[in-house]
């Protein structure tokens, strides 16, 4: 579903993505984990071209990423993205947030879009908030609306960039629960997160990233109990200490 082949990217002199090869099959859930600054967000953002790449190829559902314009917008519509900071449209109600894409990009009728939006909002448990503005919701509710907004586009892949790291502990669970449900329903997902509980229950694979490289890939169980590389051992040692 997603294929990254020898992808290279520089930020000036910083070689932030080095020789990235990553194949994700339909329905697979991949958790990307690694130290801060290792390039996880950048990797995630290249998949819908919020960041450009300098070398290599990225294809989504067999189609290479278009450079610009209409076809790029079309591809982005097929790739859902959930941000750390939620990024809900502040001037629109929850319902309008979820229907904007389906109406403007998918060209659905308003009635259709409304009906489907309520479906998605119900799926993540925030349908009762449909007429509020984002600022009137808790962080956990906002993030679930953001997930519903992405799902309403009926994407082929969902990208999550640290979706719970801006949330209070009691709200993390409600967001993770929604994500676990989604994984169980067979959505293809790339999730940057340090939530090991989520990785263990929902992920098929953990990719460990350090200094712009994918250093190690394994099943969650193998990775957490028996890491191979020194970088991974070191990293897990640090996050498990606390």
């Amino acid at each position: 579903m997603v294929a990254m082949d020898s992808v290279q990217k520089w930020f000036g002199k910083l070689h932030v993505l080095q020789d990235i090869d990553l194949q994700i099959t339909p329905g697979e859930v991949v958790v990307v984990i690694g130290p801060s600054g290792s390039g996880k967000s950048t990797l995630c953002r290249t998949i819908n071209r919020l960041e450009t790449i300098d070398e290599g190829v990225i294809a989504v559902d067999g189609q290479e990423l278009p450079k610009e314009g209409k076809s790029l917008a079309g591809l982005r519509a097929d790739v859902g993205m959930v941000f750390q900071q939620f990024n809900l449209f502040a001037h629109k109600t929850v319902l309008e947030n979820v229907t904007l894409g389906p109406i403007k990009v998918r060209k659905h009728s308003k009635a259709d879009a409304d009906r489907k939006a309520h479906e998605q909002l119900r799926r993540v448990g925030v349908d009762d908030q449909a007429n509020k503005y984002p600022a009137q919701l808790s962080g956990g509710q906002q993030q679930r609306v953001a997930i519903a907004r992405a799902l309403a586009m009926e994407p082929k892949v969902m990208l999550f960039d640290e979706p719970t790291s801006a949330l209070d502990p009691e709200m993390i669970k409600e967001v993770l629960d929604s994500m676990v449900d989604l994984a169980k329903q067979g959505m293809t997902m790339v999730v940057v997160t340090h939530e090991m509980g989520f990785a263990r229950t929902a992920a098929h694979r953990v990719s460990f990233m350090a200094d712009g490289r994918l250093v190690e890939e394994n099943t969650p169980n193998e990775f957490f109990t028996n890491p191979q590389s020194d970088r991974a051992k070191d990293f897990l040692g640090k996050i498990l200490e606390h």
Partner: protein
Amino acid sequence: MPLANNTTDERGIAMTTSTGTKTGTDIPQAIVKQRNLSWWISGLIVAAVAAFIAQSLYVNPNIAWPVVGEFILSPRILNGLWTTLELAVLSQAIAIVLGLVISLMRLSSNPVAGAVSRGYIWLFRGTPLLVQILLWGNFALFYDQITLGIPFTGVTFASWPTNEVITTFVAAVLGLALHEAAYMAEIIRSGIMSVGYGQTEAAQALGLTRGQMMSRVVVPQALRIIVPPTGNQFIQMLKMTSLVAVIAGGDLLTVAQNISAVNLQTIELLIVATVWYLLVTSIASAGQALLERRLGRSIRRQKDRGNKTARGRAS
């Protein structure tokens, strides 16, 4: 209510009923009462001064009030007022559109567009409006013909004498609009920049095109920042139109001066103009307040919620 011993009397003076325990509330109480006394005194002084000035104007033998009454609704004055309104509305409208283009150029990644935009703002904001109006009014002195053609090739389609194209009215609009556009460009740019980067990224991630992103996500949010200063600019524009009197622009001030040049009632006609300017700017201010209230709806909802939760936590 947890703060039940704080009450307010009908004059709005905060009162704190004594509950026996000495707390810090005694001190603010004293301050409130003192300010209240000086509030009355200063109010009286200001009212007395204002009344004195008004009275001295009214009984001043050098001002013939009947003349003011005679001209305030005269057709010539109303004509000038109409021209003033036309100038202000047209110039402001052109300035908003042109300012939007200039601000988008400034924000674009294209360095040529950015440089042109910066140059424009530098030139039109850096020179006095009065000078710009005089230059447009005398445009024929340095270009006597205006020609439509392909630059640098000598191919021309049509040509007109400058004085036929740039009438006084056109010169006035050019002067006001091009100057104003420089300010509008900066106002619009700050509005667009106030919309967080996360908003545009989310719009892009949904697959919205650039145009859709601008019209559905960026502009509606930027408007809340852009509208209040634009209202101020328009009110200022209503007054700045009076500068076109230097090229006999036919506006309210031009007409008032033309009349007083004949009847020598200078002050009376300036008062006529002043009254109209005040009336028109007052209406514009009211309109601005109305517009701002409409645009502020979603913000106000957020504030309501903020107050409620704050109160909820306190109790």
